[in-house]
């Protein structure tokens, strides 16, 4: 497998501390890379740099070995893009919008675009301004996918879609991945990234916090634990453990989070009458919050 995206020390300075700081990441061909971060973290700036819409202050970004700024035109044949803010097509009808964009790029597969419109149940006879937010997003999906791109750069791709269409979108993503495409997906919807992506990168204040496989990230993070006791709760022994936090106890139960090894906890429970022990994997949201701390 080759590399689809390489950024090296990629930076964009908007002044006043805003922008992107020395981002270096690699996305392998054929994978789905989730790009997570709060508002203003630098996700859209990264995407605009990859799309050659803005010029980096420092560093480079390449897609399939081509520079994103100097080889922008050649690259666009290989890239499909859903922008974060959908363009305003005004009174154009859905089919006119698709034809308009297809006319600009000349490599669109209109039969495939028709099938996508059927699949997402989008009425292409309607005017763009009459579309709901979700329907506009469906049209953006068609525009991004209709030329069978090797790389899809998607900025919040399911915004406004209902759960059924979100599911349809995830199916579509897996279909194009099966055909060898690569996806770079920025999202706030953690469940979407959790269900879709192989690797994730987390960005905060313009800097990359972490890039890892989802499973690895989960294993590194804390787990939620709830223990129900037959007798009294060994609160003092639990409190003394260095790797647990958020301890909440009742007369018969204790709920807390634990990071790292379970061995100290097992040792601390020696002699206690445990009736039920439950531990759950953290959701990505919990991981996200643990990395960022409180908002």
């Amino acid at each position, binding site marked *: 497998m080759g590399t689809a995206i390489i950024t090296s020390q990629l930076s964009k300075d908007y002044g006043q501390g805003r922008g992107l700081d020395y981002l270096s990441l690699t996305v392998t061909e054929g994978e789905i890379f989730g790009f997570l971060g709060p508002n203003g973290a630098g996700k859209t700036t990264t995407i*605009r740099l990859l799309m050659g819409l803005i010029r980096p202050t420092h560093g480079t970004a390449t897609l399939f070995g081509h520079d994103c700024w100097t080889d922008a035109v050649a690259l666009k044949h290989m890239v499909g893009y859903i922008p974060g803010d959908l363009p*305003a097509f005004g009174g154009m009808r859905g089919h006119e919008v698709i034809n308009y964009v297809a006319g600009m*790029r000349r490599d669109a597969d209109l039969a495939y675009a*028709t099938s996508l419109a059927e699949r997402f149940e989008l009425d292409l006879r309607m005017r763009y301004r009459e579309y709901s937010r979700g329907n506009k997003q469906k049209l953006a999906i068609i525009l991004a996918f209709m030329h069978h791109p090797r790389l899809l750069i998607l900025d919040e791709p399911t915004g406004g879609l209902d759960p059924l269409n979100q599911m349809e979108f995830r199916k579509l993503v897996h279909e194009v991945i099966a055909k060898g495409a690569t996806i770079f997906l920025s999202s706030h919807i953690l469940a979407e990234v959790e269900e879709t992506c192989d690797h994730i990168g987390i960005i905060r204040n313009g800097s990359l916090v972490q890039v890892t496989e989802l499973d690895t990230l989960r294993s590194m993070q804390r787990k939620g634990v709830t223990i129900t006791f037959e007798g009294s709760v060994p609160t003092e022994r639990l409190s003394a453990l260095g790797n647990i936090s958020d301890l909440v106890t009742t007369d018969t139960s204790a709920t807390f989070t634990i990071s790292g090894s379970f061995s100290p906890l097992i040792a601390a429970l020696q002699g206690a009458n445990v009736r039920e022990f439950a531990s759950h994997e953290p959701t990505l949201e919990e991981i996200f919050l643990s990395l960022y701390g409180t908002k």
Partner: protein
Amino acid sequence: MRPWILRLHRVGFAATTAVALLTTVLSTISFPIIAGHTAASRFAFGQSVEISAQSLAWLIPLPTSPDTLGGFLLWKGYDFLCLAYPFWAVMAGAGAVRGDEERGIVSQLLTAGVARTEYLLKRAFGFASVSVSSIALVGLITWISSYTTGTPLHPGGVVGASIALFALTWSCYGLTILISQEFSISRVASGVAGIVLILLFLVSSYARSSAGAAWLNYLSPFGWYYRTRALAPGGIFDIPSVAALLILGCAATAGAAVLYRFRDDGAATIRRIRSHRPERPLTLVASRILRIPTLRGVWTHRILLSIWIGAITCTLIILVDIARGTADIFTTNPALQAYLRGYGGSPAAGLVEVTGFGVMQLLLSIFVITQVSEWSIEDQNGLLELALSQPRHRRAIVIERLTQLLSMVGIISFVSLTLAFLDADLVGVHILPGPYYLAAVMLWPFAMTFACIGAALVGSIPRLTVIILAALTVISYFLYDLAPIFRWPDWIANLSMYTLYGTPYHGGIFFGGLFAMCIIIGLGTLIAGKTMRERSVGT
């Protein structure tokens, strides 16, 4: 009044007040220079103004006492301002009703508990307050500046002219917000309101210029406005017509408020219900037109293009029809004959050149400004980002924009001027086709000069570009108008785009002007290409 409502009008206030002040103050201080200081020189000046005013009779009424400062200022200043203030009223009215809906401001206010009627009335009275302030400021400064001439204006006359101007502005605003209830897109609403007001203005022009059509004046707010001649010595302040304008404004505003109560936010008042939604999905077929770069843009603007062609053709046809009647006046008066002698050919054809191509220049420069404004908006609404996400060179986008504009200017000019030419033939105005179409072709470099300046600026200062182009249009007009009066050197007069165009119908190509326009076009295109290549998009 809420400060934010007033704040929304700050650009309109500044621009319109500046134009109005330039018009009135320059006319005032130039009066003693061009009219002289003796009674005899002013009498002679008045006579020459009356002669030249014949050629503009289609646009503004004949002057009253043009040998006095008040009469001259009324003709040269306030009668032109009745175009500037209604233009502001149209932009502000359509913006208040539809522009703010498109931006989501209205829905935000409605969900915050503001009643629809309350919102509309607040916006209307906000505009009334700001326009009153502007007109009062212009009147005050004009009155003060008249002291420099030695013959100060009568304050009552200034107040009367200002009240009439406000009444006209208010009525135009009311009509605009009423019309805007039916058109859900801001640009369409302002376009339709603008066309309705232009037609009402032309009704007044026609009523003034055609025998037996004077009754039509009662159908036009502009006809009512022109009944007040308070600024001229001995002129009247026509209370019934001013009252009628104010009542029209209030009635239209009330009508708009009633319609607003019955329509959905963001929708037209009369909604077309789809009788049948096809079950079968549409199969996409590649469009050949949309694959051709320049044609693609022209095709997507086909409705706008049709509206512009219709509006310009109507204006030209009215001008041609009026030219015939005006030419008859010229032929019966030796002094007036002399005025058009320099134009050669028939007096009517000479008038068509003066008025027809003058109007074409003005309207095409406005058309170009609207297109440059669209380029600026494309940066904000994501369309430029979309275009650059496709495999297209950045410079190609600049070239496509310019060739598209060139094509649209060509289509508008050719169609409307050809229809005007055919109409001229029908009404017996004999126009020479060769020079006529040469003058039409010269409109291309004229329009592209504005376009290329816009293209060069829009990449780096998108929001200011339209203001700069509008200022350039106004300055060009004043340079064209004032350079002969103040006997400024040619190089200053040639800074005006209108001077660079020349008088190709009777004078042939002004090669110096054409060369200057080509230089501007070339430089503008180069800068536009370079700026587009370097710039960041969507930030």
